[in-house]
């Protein structure tokens, strides 16, 4: 069943077209990884889906309803949520308060502050700490928790490993694996190809605002994704030994 459907989406910053007529469908329960170089339009696409940016053209259908004109908070009510790049927590509020903010939409569901603490046990002792004082990993956990508190049907993760140490990223991904079992639909932007390939069932590669590769993870290879990433023609092997695994 198609949960999210994007039709000919165009997003512009002034004269610059960041996303160029992108069309794709995401089915319920899918875990999709968006891969692409900096400036490929991944974050812009995600922020447009979340309602933070208005598209210049095209449509976004969610659960067969046109949500293109809805504002960000209305989209959260309908079941879409973004974990933004750079966490964007409310730094003057405590961990618990940040989580409670997500619960304000009252969509109804299983997520509660206690359940968030059970998947991120490292947050328990920081419950009443202002989020401005947290470590990067704790902040990321809080940001994910805050998004989950809205009881989303689809969740967009934007660069969750950015700025975190590899050890902390391992931890965040371990928690994420638990989450993915719950059947929520996920679209994640990840620079770290190795990690993206382990959690996602499908890879979408973006290059200069367009989708250049869209395939099930099982049917693609690291090389194919790498070529799409750099915009190299197929068959033209890249022998520069560029390891995308540790791109950040």
């Amino acid at each position, binding site marked *: 069943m198609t949960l999210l459907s994007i039709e000919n989406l165009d997003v512009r910053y002034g004269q610059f077209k960041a996303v160029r007529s992108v069309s794709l469908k995401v089915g319920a329960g899918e875990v999709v990884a968006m891969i692409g170089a900096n400036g490929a339009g991944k974050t812009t696409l995600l922020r447009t889906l979340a309602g933070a940016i208005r598209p210049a053209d095209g449509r976004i259908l969610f659960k067969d309803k046109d949500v293109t004109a809805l504002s960000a908070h209305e989209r959260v009510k309908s079941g879409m949520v973004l974990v933004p790049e750079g966490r*964007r927590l*409310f730094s003057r509020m405590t961990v618990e308060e940040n989580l409670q*903010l*997500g619960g304000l939409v009252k969509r109804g569901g299983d997520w509660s502050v206690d359940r968030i603490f059970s998947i991120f046990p490292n947050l328990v002792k920081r419950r009443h700490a202002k989020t401005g004082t947290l470590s990067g990993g704790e902040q990321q956990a809080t940001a994910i928790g*805050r998004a989950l508190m809205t009881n989303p049907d689809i969740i967009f993760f934007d660069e969750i490993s950015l700025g975190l140490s590899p050890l902390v990223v391992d931890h965040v991904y371990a928690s994420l694996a638990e989450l993915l079992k719950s059947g929520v639909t996920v679209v994640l932007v990840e620079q770290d190809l190795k990690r993206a390939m382990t959690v996602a069932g499908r890879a979408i590669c973006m290059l200069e605002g367009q989708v250049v590769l869209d395939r099930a993870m099982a049917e693609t290879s690291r090389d194919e994704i790498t070529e799409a990433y750099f915009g190299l023609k197929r068959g033209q092997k890249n022998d520069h030994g560029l390891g995308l695994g540790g791109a950040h």
Partner: protein
Amino acid sequence: MLNQIAQAVILGGYYALIACGLSFMLSVMRVINLAHGSLLVLGGYFLWYLGEHYEISPFVGLVALVPLLALAGWALQRFLLERSARGGELLPILTTFGLSIVLDNLLFEQFGADTRSLAPYIGDMAWDSYELPGDIFIGKVGVLTLVAAIVLLGGLQLFLSHTGTGKAIRATAEDPDTAGIVGIDARKASAIASAIAVGSIGIASAALGMRATFDAYAGGAQLLFAFEATIIGGAGSLWGTLIGGIVLALAQTAGAAVHPQGFLIGGHLAFILVLFARFLFLPGEFTYRLRRIAGLAK
């Protein structure tokens, strides 16, 4: 001496009460509402009109005034501040300045230059006082005002920290775009905050009219006292506003003790001293840069 301190604390309660709406608006919406004093006087006239023409007690009048002002606050945010905020940070402040001029002159046109008071409509309370040990008498209106300030400031603080709407307002104040991503209707949260800030002015209007007189142009001085109390107490802290009001009143009382004309100057001095102390000692990037410009830091 003890008497003067007691009277100053009571007066400080009044300053805290009139500063409440201003402080709330500044701390959660980052807007200095320069029409604050004019709205305060407008509320005073409303209560006076009900008393004069319908013999309605100001306490009963508040039941109508507070919701009406809250509605005005909502409209102020939706139709003036929200639009002017698109033109930059300074524009909302200029907008409220313009609004204050319009209000002051409309009030003058309507009610003329006569001074008004709500004292005739509250019976004995206007002059009654409580006697404290040591021959200290404090006016009932003053005590009521101080209690109202504590209840209002405390209530707002509890509202902000413990209710969903309060948290939504704080989140919106910090980052409206991210608030939207989390599912908070930022426009609604701002309008509610503005309604609360302006609605609370009504209670201060009653205090203004009960303790003294006012005329159409009385708003400017009230705005100044409210602003000084807010800044002395530390913008962004509601309990600080209560302390700020009391510090302002103590400084004014001390000024008056030094010289009969020293009342206002004492208050202004305290205000300027606090500003300077912040500038010199407060940690933070902004104050550090200011110190560098002034050649006081490397």
